[in-house]
């Protein structure tokens, strides 16, 4: 019994130390990407699109490394269903719910090259700001421009990751989607790839600190569902404001239902980085 307690305590301390290490690693990695690698990209890739592509690939590799370290350190585990949809994603709108800070890290680690819509706070951030701009991500300051920029990215065959909630889920409250994602789906006409995410036990919620780690290794489950067509979910021939409202409600309903029926464990899917 006492030995068990000591082992549990040691495991906790190890994961706490490794969590701290990963946070420091993330910060150093961001600085290196922003101030060393990405400025280098400006020298070797003059064309903006080529620069974006390389920067997106670097982010994929960097986040893949972070996920590999966190997994190896038993800080977290990842279970994936339908990951091949993400690995081969072209111009699709990847919509995911957002339970945890790491969702975007995991998604970028799984998609070889992706664009995403980022909050204005990140766009203007002294370190991360340079990173998200070089990677050609889309800032959400002017909603009207976001829709046009997003449709352009998708038309170039680049997958676009959007969290329709706009921020991390507040635990215990119903899902609430903003309408931007629906507008992007309607304007681009591209398929929606729904990704259901869960984090068990919940950690890295909005407002929580890095050292508030759960009592055991947390599991991030990623379930990629077959693509949806916006035109099947929203009626055509109505004002876009109405169509976006209907599509948003349909997506909220879809995600709420599917998340309820998400299995507690995905069997037969070994963790992949």
């Amino acid at each position: 019994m006492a030995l068990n307690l000591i082992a549990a305590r040691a495991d906790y301390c190890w994961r706490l130390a490794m969590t701290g290490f990963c946070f420091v690693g993330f910060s150093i990695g961001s600085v290196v990407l922003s101030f060393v690698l990405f400025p280098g990209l400006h020298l070797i890739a003059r064309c903006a699109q080529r620069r974006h592509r390389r920067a997106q690939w670097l982010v994929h590799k960097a986040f893949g490394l972070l996920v590999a370290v966190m997994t190896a350190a038993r800080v977290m585990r990842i279970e994936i269903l339908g990951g091949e949809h993400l690995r081969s994603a072209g111009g699709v709108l990847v919509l995911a719910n957002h339970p945890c800070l790491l969702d975007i890290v995991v998604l970028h680690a799984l998609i070889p090259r992706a664009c995403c819509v980022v909050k204005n706070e990140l766009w203007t951030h002294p370190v991360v700001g340079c990173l998200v701009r070089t990677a050609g991500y889309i800032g959400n300051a002017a909603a009207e421009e976001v829709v046009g920029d997003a449709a352009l990215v998708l038309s170039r065959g680049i997958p676009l990751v959007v969290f329709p909630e706009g921020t991390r889920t507040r635990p215990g409250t119903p899902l609430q989607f903003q309408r931007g994602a629906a507008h992007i789906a309607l304007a681009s006409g591209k398929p929606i790839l729904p990704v259901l995410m869960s984090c068990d036990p919940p950690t890295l919620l909005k407002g929580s600190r890095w050292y508030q780690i759960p009592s055991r290794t947390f599991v991030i489950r990623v379930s990629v569902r077959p693509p949806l067509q916006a035109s099947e979910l929203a009626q055509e021939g109505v004002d876009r404001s109405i169509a976006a409202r209907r599509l948003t409600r349909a997506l909220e309903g879809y995600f709420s239902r599917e998340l309820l029926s998400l299995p507690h464990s995905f069997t037969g899917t070994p963790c992949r980085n």
Partner: protein
Amino acid sequence: MKDEEILERVKSVLAESFEVDPERVTLFANLFDDLGLDSIDAVDLAIKVQEITGKRVQPQEFRTIRTVADVVAAVQRLLDT
């Protein structure tokens, strides 16, 4: 057009295009906090105001609009010019 008529038009636009219950539309209602519009809706509302008045709406003029009263005043101003 009288202010009351404009308000009725605004109410019907909000109901038809933005699914806003007309009972919730008062002059003091905030479009974003009370009636659930977002910034893309604001652009679409400006287009609706153009249709009502037949005049071009300056984007910077519509950016300051917050309440139903602001919309009514903007329509009135456009009709007067």
